[in-house]
């Protein structure tokens, strides 16, 4: 088993078993969804240093791609999910030139890009195609238990992707690019290609998460699946736990999303306040997240 493998298996098993002992499956589902998104952010930010504020754009694209495949192509949900992931990767490919921009410009440009996708999808003129602002209804394929199970599988995939990156040449190459882009180029690493790969992998994970989300809720409007707060949650969970590790985003999500459901769900502004303070404190005092504390005391973190 590669490093971190057993942890991943443990997390996946936990979410496979929890529904039998805890009734609010929507909550468990959302937590898995954020675990996947946080790992998606991790793939990009942790391994390349690019922070995609517009990450939710891929999520929304996946949700719409999957839904439209079900509604227009009459595909069953599982192949439709692949269409959703492919749609997210396609958007990623179109936006790949953004990777030319340096850090902060990239972050803002990706945010703008997700708004562009949102305004196109929700445009009333496209109602015959996307249902425009009136939202999607997939009641005919609604199946809470199956979609939950598929999200468990997507979670396994996301964790597997990060385990792979942590243990593979691609992951090493990406981190070399992150630290020293110019010398990495001299060392024969194709900087543009490796970055684009991470970007597309990250897009595909968000697209899958969005697709399963769409199937699971089955009725949704464009605004909630393109809501900036989805990006914000995933980014904060990743930063809090510690990017570029497998466990960081997992711990960040379990702790913060758990806290969110404990105090936040009906008082989200207090939670947003906590988030904001967490970010400021992290940047000033702990830029590499909680996991860096463990590393400081010589614990090896996968």
């Amino acid at each position: 088993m590669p490093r971190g493998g057993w942890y991943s298996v443990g997390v996946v098993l936990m979410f496979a078993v929890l529904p039998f002992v805890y009734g609010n499956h929507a909550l468990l589902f959302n937590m898995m969804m954020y675990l996947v998104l946080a790992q998606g952010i991790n793939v990009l930010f942790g391994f390349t240093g690019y922070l995609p504020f517009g990450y939710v754009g891929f999520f929304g694209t996946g949700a719409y791609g999957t839904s439209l495949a079900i509604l227009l192509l009459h595909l069953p949900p599982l192949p439709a999910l692949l269409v959703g992931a492919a749609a997210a990767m396609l958007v990623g490919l179109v936006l790949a030139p953004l990777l030319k921009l340096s850090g902060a410009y990239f972050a803002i440009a990706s945010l703008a890009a997700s708004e562009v996708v949102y305004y196109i999808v929700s445009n009333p003129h496209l109602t015959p195609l996307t249902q425009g602002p009136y939202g999607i209804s997939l009641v005919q394929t609604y199946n809470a238990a199956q979609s939950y199970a598929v999200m468990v599988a997507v979670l396994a995939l996301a964790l597997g992707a990060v385990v792979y990156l942590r243990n593979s040449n691609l992951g090493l190459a990406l981190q070399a690019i992150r630290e020293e882009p110019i010398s990495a180029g001299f060392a024969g690493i194709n900087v543009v290609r490796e970055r684009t790969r991470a970007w597309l992998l990250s897009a595909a994970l968000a697209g899958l998460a969005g697709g399963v989300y769409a199937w699971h809720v089955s009725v949704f409007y464009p605004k909630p699946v393109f809501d900036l707060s989805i990006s914000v949650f995933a980014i904060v969970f990743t930063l809090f736990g510690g990017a570029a590790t497998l466990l960081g985003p997992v711990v960040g999500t379990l702790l913060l999303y758990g806290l969110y459901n404990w105090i936040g769900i009906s008082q989200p502004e207090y939670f947003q306040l906590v988030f904001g303070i967490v970010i400021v404190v992290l940047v000033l005092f702990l830029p590499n997240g909680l996991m860096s504390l463990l590393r400081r005391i010589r614990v090896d973190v996968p």
Partner: protein
Amino acid sequence: MLSYTLLAGLLFGLYFSLVAVGLNLVFGVMRLINLAHGDFLMLGAFLAYGLYAAAGLNPLYAIPAAIVAFMLAGVALYYAVVPRLQASRDPQMLSFILLFGVSQIIEALAVIAFGNNQRAIPATVFGSRPVLLLGQSFPVAWVVSAAVSAVALVVVYVYLYHSRLGYATRAVMASRDEAASTGINVHRVSAIALGTGLALAAVAGVFSAFMLGSIEPDMGIGITTTSFAVIVIGSLGNPLGTVLGGLVYGVGLMVMETFYPSWADLLPYVLLILILLVRPSGLLGQRVRLA
């Protein structure tokens, strides 16, 4: 119809210049993108709303209060975080993330203080009779907002080009290290620039109820992106280029709103992406640093 659209575009263009100019000033001096820019604007809007709702005060009275309060806030914010960040490994990205945290904090505090509801100041506070400009009638609030914006932009010009502080500020913009070596107090100049940037945003916020629609705690991030679009159209780091960016954006927005209204919301985002990718130097000015 077209002349109405163009005139409205100029009025909004002046206003958008004011909305964005503070962001560009801060960027020019510190090379950092203030992600909380729109949130400071939102606070200015609530200040004007609060004075109006509590005491029936005309929003114009909110301007001096906004300038003093946000100038101080900016100076305090600078000394609290910026010197510490500049010592770190990647100051640009870290300060960007930090200001994002600040933006979240401001938005959350605004929801806690004011509730997550839309607020409006009646456009009739400046009088109910529309103003005639070149044979077209416009809401008086638009004309007042544009006029105040023009005055504020002139003040920024005088500050930058006709004052000792402005000379030092431009020296820091050109090169932080060289400015420091010639004995300029870089921290003091930068702190004042951040304060001025926030004060300008807050003054723009005073009029947002008339120009941008109702006041809400979560309006900030959209305004930050729009402002960023305006300053990249003009030129990053050149505050006066913002006026050109604002006018281009204002007229573009009004033309879209009139002729292709359902696509108008796309405008700032598409412009932002295109200009960053195709002509990162903006319509004027120097190049953006690429990776």
